[in-house]
């Protein structure tokens, strides 16, 4: 069976094809193929089949069919689903069943979509390879010896394996775009404040957004239009705006800082060649955004600081893993947290705690906030001249599972993606070619609320690739 686009599938289902059969066939495929990939932590067989039957009934009864009618969506396991366990890839939340749906889940259900399963991820979204999951690594469907990218590796692998045409990921420093690039699909990190974070389990609140993932731009846009929108439950949610697209041709700036130390030659060549090819259709110019040189440490200080506070609530008392009770509450907390969290999570909590501590705060956290402002200003200046900014999504090709052991080496993988999170601007990864038989993603960034620009340019990339 050749995977059809979500848009085509929706037409078929709305036109009379059985949603139940469609869902059963996906579940069958997942059961058969996913043990090799490990893209799902939880498969929602029961609720998905029930939802499918309800949708078939609705269509028979002549109800109004939603924009995602019958479509299966794979949802990252840090997005709360009522009655379906939501683990964040952590032993800490192995048995946590949220009593409520995240706003995006309500929107999906309201659009007649079906949550087919909860996807694997780096524990608490901390990682770039989905190797930091308590539930084992997710393998890249294009080469099962290699990582799928992360932290939304399960969502990307599920789309690339045609387990679901659509998926939701979350992107704190590149966690949607990185696996999209590694699995050769499309992934969008929306403008900060565009998609409600209510129900997204926080890693670093000031940076992250839930983002749509799909095999092509059209499907990605379809899903984005459903999940976007103001939500009073998220105080950082913004009233929706759209950037007007001018009549003239697109002007794309390519910062030279995106090709600095750490970028593999193969990646650089592939991206540069592609941009040359694009030059025949749009204006492409090399620019400089000097503050980007500091983006990575800035990102990690802010993300870890926020994480150290966000993850404090996991003490095992009200929910989550509970081990032996200690002689006092402090010891009990230590037991539970010591057992429930993995290495990388512990490392980030400790570093973040350090960065916020008296005596270090000014040197780290406060300074990082200042650089963040500079990065935002650099982008604002660039967008006065250019419609879009482009570069590679990932500095490296998908690496082998277990290959990168040094944490700093893994952090370096985020060098191209974190600037968009620091600046709060939208960014998309679109497949632009192959190098050594492995996929390379092109990253495009737009000014705030410029998602339509990204989709428009993304379609050009799709045509050229």
């Amino acid at each position, binding site marked *: 069976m050749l995977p059809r686009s979500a848009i085509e599938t929706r037409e078929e289902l709305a036109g009379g094809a059985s949603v139940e059969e469609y869902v059963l066939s996906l579940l069958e495929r997942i059961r058969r193929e996913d043990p090799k990939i490990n893209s799902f932590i939880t498969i929602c067989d029961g609720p998905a089949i029930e939802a499918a039957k309800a949708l078939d009934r609705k269509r028979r009864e002549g109800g109004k069919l939603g924009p995602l009618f019958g479509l299966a969506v794979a949802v990252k396991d840090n997005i*709360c689903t009522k009655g379906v366990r939501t683990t964040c890839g952590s032993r800490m939340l192995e048995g946590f069943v949220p009593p409520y749906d995240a706003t995006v889940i309500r929107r999906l259900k309201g659009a007649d979509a079906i949550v087919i399963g909860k996807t694997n991820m780096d524990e608490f979204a901390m990682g770039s390879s989905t190797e930091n999951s308590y539930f084992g690594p997710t393998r890249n469907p294009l080469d099962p010896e290699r990582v799928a990218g992360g932290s939304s590796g399960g969502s990307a692998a599920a789309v690339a394996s045609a387990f679901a045409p659509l998926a939701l990921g979350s992107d704190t420093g590149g966690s949607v775009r990185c696996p999209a690039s590694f699995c050769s699909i499309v992934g969008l990190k929306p403008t900060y404040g565009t998609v409600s*974070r*209510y129900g997204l389990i926080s890693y*670093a609140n000031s940076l992250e957004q839930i983002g749509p993932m799909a095999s092509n731009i059209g499907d990605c846009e379809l899903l984005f239009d459903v999940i976007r929108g103001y939500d009073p439950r998220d*105080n*950082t949610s913004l009233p929706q705006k759209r950037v007007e697209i001018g009549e003239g041709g697109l002007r794309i700036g390519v910062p030279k800082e995106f090709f600095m130390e750490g970028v593999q030659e193969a990646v650089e060549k592939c991206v540069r060649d592609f941009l040359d090819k694009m030059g025949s259709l749009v204006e492409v110019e090399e620019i400089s955004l000097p503050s980007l040189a500091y983006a990575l440490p800035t990102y990690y200080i802010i993300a870890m600081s926020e994480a*150290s506070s966000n993850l*404090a609530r996991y003490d095992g008392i009200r929910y989550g893993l509970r081990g032996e009770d200690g002689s006092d*509450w402090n010891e009990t907390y230590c037991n539970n947290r010591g057992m429930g969290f993995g290495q990388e999570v512990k490392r980030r909590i400790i570093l973040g705690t350090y960065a916020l501590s008296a005596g270090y705060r000014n040197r780290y956290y406060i300074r990082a906030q200042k650089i963040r402002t500079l990065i935002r200003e650099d982008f604002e200046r660039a967008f006065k001249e250019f419609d879009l900014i482009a570069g590679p999504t990932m500095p490296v090709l998908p690496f082998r599972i277990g290959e990168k052991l040094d944490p700093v080496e893994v952090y370096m993988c985020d060098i191209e993606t974190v600037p968009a999170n620091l600046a709060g601007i939208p960014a998309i990864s679109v497949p632009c070619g192959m190098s050594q038989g492995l996929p390379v993603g092109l990253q495009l960034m737009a000014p705030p609320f410029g998602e339509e620009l990204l989709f428009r340019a993304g379609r050009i990339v799709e045509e050229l690739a």
Partner: protein
Amino acid sequence: MAEVPIRIGLEIHCQLTNLRTKLFCGCPADYRGSPPNTHICPICMGLPGSLPSPNKKAIEDGVAVAIALNSEISKRMTFFRKNYFYPDLPKNFQISQYDGGGGVPLARGGYLHIEGGKRIRIRRIQIEEDPAKLAYEGTIDDSTATLVDNNRAGVALLEIVTEPDMEDPKEARAFLEKLRGILECLGVSNGELEGAMRCDANISLGGGTRVEIKNISSFKEVERALTFEITRQRQLLARDIEVRRETRHWDDVRRITVSLRAKEEEEDYRYFPEPDIVPIEISEDFIEGIRKRLPELPDQRRERYIRQFGLQEHNAELISSDNALSKLFEECVRMGGDPIEVSNWLVGDLISFTRELGMELTDPRVSPSKIVELVKLIRSGSISTKIAKEVLMESLRSDESPEDIVKRRGLLKISDEALLRDVVEEVFTENEKAVREALHDEDVVNFLIGQVMRKTKGKADPNLTYEIVKGSLERIKGGAPDS
């Protein structure tokens, strides 16, 4: 030992008890009397993925308090996270505000006048969430577990911090009473509710080390705790022992303070801006809108009582700072009671009688009509002041009107001159020695009058009695022959 100057500062936490919902979620804010853990939701329980949404009414209430305390309201305030692990914090951090590190509290500065006109300066006012309530089976020592009731978690609190402007424990208490009056007058907090107003105090002697006292549960306890702490520090200083910079815990059973932790052991709260709540802009219009809706505040009320009714400063202050008393006073005046006489009765006997009877001023038996009736009975000369006190007490206790009591018990003042002359004559005959002394000793005159009062059970008209006794004595002095 010479008196060393004392400096006391207070940090008061008051719940905004009149809010319908908690500070960041839709759970009912009124948790008192509810079964444990029934007013909770994903937000106030800090469940993964939940996000706080600030309660606009809480900010309005905070602004109202800031206006009343003459504070400068921030144009753009921010929430900060205060990070520490404790079982009463579902998120293991508290969403609060912070004056530093780029944080901006609701308001800064301001002042409040306590009785006598002394000005106590306010340092800052901030909004934060209340932690959960911890409970124990039996006592804290023999309970096998700490129980957590999250109904209180997330209730809106206002933290008001003063400068160390109070110089003795009485002033601290006066400040708290005054503040409570203002909060109640604004209708934002009912300080009568258990735990609605909580207080920490800091105190230093002779400009020396500052000691903080926590866990003070009532205004009376504030005075006690501070008095104890002054004695403790004085004794240390007298023996040349240094006062340690520390936080102490008020043990209200043993009535002593005990060391909780030294300065070096203070937690590092790792304050940073709450990323889930955007800074809140407070416009001039917003503030003006609230200012316009403010009720008359105690200080304004006091001025008006003096201006409009000619009340004495002392009475005006006492009545105006208590909302129930103010209401009672104004009702009495409206019903035609003489303001000055009414105020004397309220400030004097009414307060002490109700206290003695364990009655609230809001008790329906404390009705303005009783006071007005009483004042009129005295004014018309129907009863004496002494009888009036008795009548008031009985009227409060039995809920019978003063007039009915006077009638039923035949307490009307004896103003019949002939009758009183007979009584005086009787007293003079029984007290010959006293009569002789009374000729040149005014105190003994009073004794004779007292005897007349005793024989008439206090009903004799005091002025008339005085005149008759005086007249009789004059006649004896003038050698008028006994008829």
